[in-house]
Each structure stands twice: as C-alpha cells, then as structure tokens.
C-alpha cells in the first residue's frame, strides 16, 4: 500500500483548502451526484458563456480524494474552452481508469497528476471521479439547454 503515492501533498493541500468551493450564481446547470458505496456527494454548477466554461462552483461532502479532485477540476477547467475542457476531462478519466499504469501529462493535467497514485486503489477511483462525472453531466446539460434556447 503506497500511502504516500495516494495522499500526495498536493491532494492534502487541496483537501484542506479547496479552490473555487461554494455554490455561485449565475449558472446554467446544476447536478447532484452521489457515490452510492460511501455516500460521498457533490452538488455542482456550471456556467457556460459561448464556448467557454466561465464558472464551476460546487458544494462537496466527501473524502480527501473526492474533495481534492473536485478542487483540481475547478482550477483546471474554469476559463477553458468547452472543447479543451472535454479533452482534459478525458485525460483525467483515462488516468484514473489506467490502474496506475498511465504516465500523466503534467502540461495537461497540472495538479491533476497527483491522482496517478489513487489510480492504483480501485476503491478510490470512484472518489476521484465523482466531481468529474458531475461536471461532465452538468456541462452536457448546460450545452443542450443553450442550444435549445438559441
């Protein structure tokens, strides 16, 4: 059990002081996701302007891994073009589902590379992905509703 690999300093820092936390206005979609196994929850809002992710705000309750990864997500994706954000999202999901065998790209994932260790802990992969799955869901809804009102 490589505890140091799992609980990287970066993760513990994000856990202790999560970035962009709290629910903010305006937003185009809000979702609530749950990890049925452990009960971790996140309420996440996405605000989209044109093709930009202009804000991600959230209220998360959960373990260090799920909290930190949502914080890293907000850091990484706020201000990105949706298309680019989706690309980063995909890289992060690949990293987490890679059973610890994927070498993460720091240029793309920045602090997100700290989760490479968590990918070796199958029970924690879901924790790390909770916020990311919520973001994907919310963004899809925001884009759909934006298209509908166009």
């Amino acid at each position: 059990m490589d505890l140091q690999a799992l609980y990287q300093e970066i993760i513990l820092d994000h856990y202790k002081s999560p970035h962009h936390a709290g629910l903010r206005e305006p937003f185009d979609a809000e979702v609530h996701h749950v990890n049925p196994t452990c009960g971790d929850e996140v309420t996440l809002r996405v605000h989209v302007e044109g093709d930009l992710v202009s804000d991600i705000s959230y209220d998360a309750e959960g373990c260090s891994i799920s909290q930190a990864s949502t914080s890293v997500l907000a850091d990484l994706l706020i201000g990105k073009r949706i298309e680019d954000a989706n690309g980063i999202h995909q890289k992060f999901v690949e990293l987490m589902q890679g059973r610890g065998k994927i070498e993460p790209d720091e240029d793309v994932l920045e602090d997100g590379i700290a989760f490479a260790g968590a990918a070796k802990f199958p029970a924690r992969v879901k924790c790390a992905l909770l916020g990311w799955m919520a973001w994907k869901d919310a963004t899809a809804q925001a884009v759909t509703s934006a298209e509908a009102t166009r």
Partner: protein
Amino acid sequence: MTVETTALQGLLDVERIRADFPILARRLDGDRPLVYLDSANTSHKPQQVIDALSEHYAMHNANVARAVHQLGAEATAAFEESRDKVAAFIGAPSRDEVIFTKNASEALNLVANTLAWARGALEIGDGDEVVITEMEHHSNIVPWQLLTERKGATLRWFGLTDEGRLDLSNIDELINERTKVVSLTWVSNMLGTINPIAEIARRAHDVGALVVVDASQAVPQLPVDVAALGADLVAFTGHKLVGPTGIGVLWGRSEVLEALPPFLGGGEMIETVTMARSTYAQAPHKFEAGTPPIAQAVGLGAAIDYLSAIGMAKVAAHEQAITAYALTRLREVGGLTILGPAEAVDRGGAISFELEGVHPHDVSQILDSLGIAVRAGHHCAKPAHHRFGVQSSTRASFYLYTTPAEVDALIEGLDQTKRFFKVA
C-alpha cells in the same frame, strides 16, 4: 449392437476430463461405479471449481462493493471479473448487462415480476397477451401465469407436434399486436428439442413484443452469442454449467434493463436512500439487492474458464455425438418410446422415454441399484408430459464427461429392468 467408441465422431478426451471431476470416482452402494446420466438436472463440478471456492473463502473472503480494505478489494475484483467472464462467454455487448441471480428461476421471475410493476411501453394489462410454449419448464410457466392472472392479461402458448417440436403453424395468430412478451426455452430439458429462437424472436419483435429466452439447458451445451440470438433477455443457471449452486444469470439488453423497475430492494441496489424515498443504481446493481452470491460468482467464473479452455464448440460436438449414440441404442430397446425428436438433429442431450409396463419411478430405482443415475418424474415439465399423454417419464442426460460405455450401461440396465418386472 455396441458401436465401437472410437467410431464416434466428435468425442472429447473423456478420460482426461473425468479425472477433473472427483465425484465420478465415487463408488456407490455395492461398490458400484457411478454412471451419472442426470446432468440436465445438475452437472458435476471439476476440482478447479471446488478449489476456486475453497481458495476464495480461505484467502479472499470479504463483502463486495462496500469495503475499502484489501480483502474487500480482492473479493470485489474477483466478483466483478466473473461478470466479465460471463459477459465474454455469452457474447454480451456490455458487462453491465449481466445480472447475477440465485438461479435461472429467479432470473425468469425477475423479468415477470418487474414487468408487473413496469409503467409505460412495458406495462402489461387487460387485453395484453403473453406467449409461452407447452414444452416450458415450470420456471418459465408459473411466473407468467402469476403475471397474467395478476394483471388481467392472457397467457397463450405454442403447442407441440407429435415429434416434440414447436407447432409453429399458428404463429401469425399467436404472435399478434396484443402480444407483449414471448418467453420460451432454447433447449427443452425434457424433449431435448432445440427451438428456432432467432425466427421466433424476429416475429415477436415485428409486433413489438419482448423476447425472453430460458437458456438453462442451452448455455451448458452450446456456444452462445446473445447479441446474435435476437432475444432481449436470457436466463441461465450456474449449477448446470459445472458451476456451483446458488447462482444464476440474467442477461438483458441495456435499454430493456433501464426501462424495468427494480426487483428486490435494499443493500447495494440504491443510489440514495432517505426515509421518504429512494433512487436506484444503474443495472446490473439495480437488480442485485443484498450481498450477492460472491463465492458462487467466483466459482461460476472458474467453471466458465474450465469450459472455455475445452471450447464450447467441442463440448457441443461431444454432447451431439453421445446423444446420437444414445438415441441409436435406445431405439433397439423393445417397448421403449422416446418422447421428443428421435434423431440427433436440432436436439440437445436430454432423452426422455417410456418403458412399456414399468413406471419411470421403478425404472430409475432398478437403474439406481446398478449405480446408474437417471431422473424419473415430470422433470418440472408437467404440461409437456400431459401433451404426450403420460404423467412421467425416465430421462437420461449427458454432459462433457459422459462416455459411450455409460450409454451401454444404461441399455443393459434397461434390459435388466425389463427382466425384473417380467415385461417382454
């Protein structure tokens, strides 16, 4: 006539296979070797499966999906790996379409039972029809009787020809715009008949009906590709597949599983629970309330590994060869009538028969005294027996460990039975 064993095409290296099955070395009363011809009832287990169970309990036991700890991770990985094995074995497009149940009966009831509470397109009510066949196992009759009675729908069925095949002459009338479900067996456990699933599924889908297939006798005997089969839901059972008791499988197309309401409530089938209301997980977990048959899934995975290593095409060829040989030899027995197709064409490895003047119970008792295990009774297919004007029959059934010599022993045993009861 005793056909030279070596002359039979398609036989497996049975002696090597038999060495894997400890029970086949059992000596019965009177120090008789076991001649087990009751595999359609339940199959025996190779040492590999028994060892997988023991090893799981002795080394990796834990509850699944719930625990962060190492044993929990090991047990979860083993359990979910078995789901992958099942999915690959039956050609399921997605592992999430594989639901573990306790047996085939539960799998079939799961479908009938959730349909009772389904709303929308799948809802069943007054004037709707469910179609089954006269050759079904009780487990594919009673759930539909309960459903149709309770919902005011009508149960209808395909009759049988004298040869023991489905009588499809009235298919256009039977499968009509009122038909909501067509549920039928792939291989009959009594008659041995293999039914033309793809054709019937096509007709059923033309009228928008759901197609449920009882593959309890098919999955053990045939290479299976559910995606190609054309069915929406397929049920089978582990214990007939050299696997443990206590586990069955329901495969279902994702869209259908999504549209069905949950079955049993509790444990890990939820997304979130408050006292006032709950939301449910996605399939397969939605249909797997409570602690699943963990060790049994692991055992089933080992069983699938065992059969896959041999190859299901070869298992099927062996079954085919033994069945053809048995049919030939049984036809030589005076006073014996085979119920079901008499030729080894579109036919599985269960042969039910009558012996004039001796009740099946008595036939099987005499055979048992010779160490030969067959089944006597209605084999949970009373209506099919009724169709052939009999109350019960004797059934011999074969599997990958069955030898031609065991078929010969059966024939001799039948001769002795006739002598004992003084019938020609």
